[in-house]
């Protein structure tokens, strides 16, 4: 019984170490570079973002169309 517990704790501890070794080996870049890329993506795509810029009522299927005024 105690043997089983011992080997499962060992397995759990080993898995944790293996996972951490993997995570430690990840290649990272500086936050300044990563943040600049995030910023540039936002700015480059801003004009296409309807919730940021709005679109003309005619193009927005959810906005009520302006009244026609034909009468």
């Amino acid at each position, binding site marked *: 019984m105690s043997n089983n517990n*011992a*080997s499962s*704790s*060992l*397995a759990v*501890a*080993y*898995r*944790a*170490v*293996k*996972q*951490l*070794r*993997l*995570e*430690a080996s*990840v290649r*990272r*870049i*500086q*936050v*300044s*570079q*990563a*943040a*600049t*890329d*995030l*910023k540039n*993506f*936002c*700015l*480059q*795509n*801003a004009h*296409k*973002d*309807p*919730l*940021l810029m*709005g*679109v003309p009522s005619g193009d*927005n*299927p*959810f*906005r*009520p169309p302006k009244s026609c005024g034909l009468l």
Partner: protein
Amino acid sequence: MACQGLSKGETVSSLRAESENLKAKLEEERSKLHDVELHQVAEKVEALGQFVMKTRRTLKGHGNKVLCMDWCRDKRRIVSSSQDGKVIVWDAYTTNKEHAVTMPCTWVMACAYAPSGCAIACGGLDNKCSVYPLSLDKNENLSAKKKSVAMHTNYLSSCSFTNSDMQLLTSSGDGTCALWDVESGQLLQSFHGHSADVLSLNLAPSETGNTFVSGGCDKKANVWDMRSGQNIQSFETHESDINCVRYYPSGDAFATGSDDATCRLYDLRADREVAIYSKESIIFGASSVDFSLSGRLLFAGYNDYTINVWDVLKGTRVAILFGHENRVSTVRVSPDGTAFCSGSWDNTLRRWAGYSFRFVYCCIWTL
């Protein structure tokens, strides 16, 4: 055997010591690259003006709390699921209900639209995820064609089709995520690593390959390789359950919403948290988050019934939206970014002709 590869003399205590060392080293490596904050990089970016967003449509029909919703790729249909077991497919332009299914369980916590628009997936307390092909014939009983795909050993918290109708990704209260073949119901890959319920998952935008992120009650957000099942990155900075995870549109980062009343942004290439969206006045948990198309705005629904809109780059709040009368449980931006839909635990009682009706709303918002 799990212990293959152990060096001679490794014991539980030596492994635990190495664990602690590795964690400290990880923190040190991440800190070395932490040379600036995101909002500092964004200092010169023009500030956003005042945001006025209005509810343009109200989808009324659920009898009890709306727990989840998803947009169809056609940008007009929506599937929503609720506590009373109902799953409804709506046309958001007209607010008409196109299909309705009654699940055999209550608390349908997860629902998703298939990429083709021809099927939906849903599940909850039944511990399963089932797929219903949508029929063009409105009178057809959808339950007749129901297919059980995923089987977990605890509740289903979230589901998503991958890039086709053929595979389904699920997360569960049993602490795992899993990838399933829809046709055969076969388990293709399982993802182990969370130490408590997994509450949310999100697939990376297709250009960036086969990964997804999950968040759960162990306060961790994990990034996974779908093919190998490997947990490739892990982030643990939240102080409570992570209720929702959502990728930034470029795929290089993801946002989280948590019971600790904050939303956070994690950059995958810097391998760390790069922004926190919080205010002292916000003390209720964030249940759901989603980005606008450019990633500049983060919409977050909270348990205090509000939706806060954050400037992702500057870290400031640009709007608070009031429109619900109970917790906001789900917030999703439409595929073309023109609107977002919010679902809530709203339980508005209306009386008519001697009967009492409870109406629960999904709201569609635009600028």
